[in-house]
């Protein structure tokens, strides 16, 4: 069973690696933003599987943090850039 979990982690890591090509290629800022989602969700899955494989349930707390941060980054980027565009939005 343990080898299966390790295989899953390895597979998910490779998925992330492939997804990173999208950050590199872009072509737009929004495409790059997608990667935060990819990393958020897949990273959480990796942590969940790892917490089972290492027998360390506390890794689930890290998973929660990942999620929070991924969404915060998206909110930040969207608000910051739209605020810069239309001053009535967030800034000033």
């Amino acid at each position, binding site marked *: 069973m343990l080898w299966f979990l390790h295989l899953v982690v390895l597979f998910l890591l490779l998925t992330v690696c492939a997804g990173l090509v999208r*950050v*590199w290629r872009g*072509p737009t800022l929004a495409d790059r933003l997608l*990667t935060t989602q990819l990393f958020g969700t897949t990273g959480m899955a990796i942590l969940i599987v790892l917490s089972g494989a290492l027998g360390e349930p*506390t890794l689930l*707390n*890290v998973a929660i943090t990942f999620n929070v*941060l991924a969404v915060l980054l998206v909110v*930040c980027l969207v608000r910051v850039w739209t605020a810069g565009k239309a001053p009535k939005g967030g800034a*000033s």
Partner: protein
Amino acid sequence: MSVWIDILLATLSVALAVRCLTAPTLAQCVFLFFAFGLTLALAWARLGAVDVAIAEAAIGAGFLGVLLIDALRDFAPAKEATVEDAEGYAAGGSAAEGSAAGVPLRAGRAALPLLPLAIAAVVFVLLTAEAVLNVRDGGGLTELAQENLARSGVDHPVTAVLLNYRSYDTWLEVGVVLIALLAIFAVGNGGTFARRDHVTHDPVLEPVSRILAPVLFLIGGFLLFLGKYEPGGAFQAAVLWGAMGILLYLAGWPVMTCLPRVWWQVLLTAGFGVFMLLGLAFMSGGGAWFEYPLAHAGNLILLIETLAALSIAAALTAIFAFFHEMHAPDATETPEK
């Protein structure tokens, strides 16, 4: 099998670091840095450092990532960051920012400076030789930490180190965050936070922020309380609370102006101040600096952690809000091109 996970993670983090530094645009640099931080968090999870993983994901990748994105507005105007990379590279010649974003390294690819590369190679060889081969085995303070755990008032060794064995480190760290806040205030173009009403026009972000903020607060409190037994504690809680503050601020709530200025000052200094006063009180009682009385150690640590977490969270929110408003005067001055 698990060795391959480690090798893949290590390779990925190194590749991301290199890519991040050689990325043609600053936007790529930021997102690769974020990915790098999360990869590092995974590596720390593999190494069994759960506290560090939370701290890295939250502060190292999350908070700094947010600050970098905000700074991107100054250094790379929206247009260059959103058009296709190749175009941004070509059209960037007109604007100074564009050319800077386009050429990552000093001499370009044609003539890489040999001296830094040579220095880097030498340092790498020395570091690898020293780290992998020469550092003696069997050192470490694990035994010492384990022996004294019963007397520290908490059950989790990392929390014991942070808030009991070496609490002056933590105390000064809270101080460093405070000083960073003050220094950033001093460097920025000053002024107070603009008092603005609730300005959200977003039909989804507002209700979501109403749900997410309490959830974040609860998770933060949960991690804070958990720090006694498991990975978690003041810093992790602080970052989640800070994330809550930043989220509310970005959703348009008047976070920085809802409290009077004095309250903010109290909030920001409470962690540092109470920590110091407690230390002085123990010292005047005949103990050493931060030598907690054994019976109350657990509760005192929880009190200190709560206040420190509140202070750091307030500082992080204030740093971000100040960063965000640093750009505001320029946004009105420079017209959109």
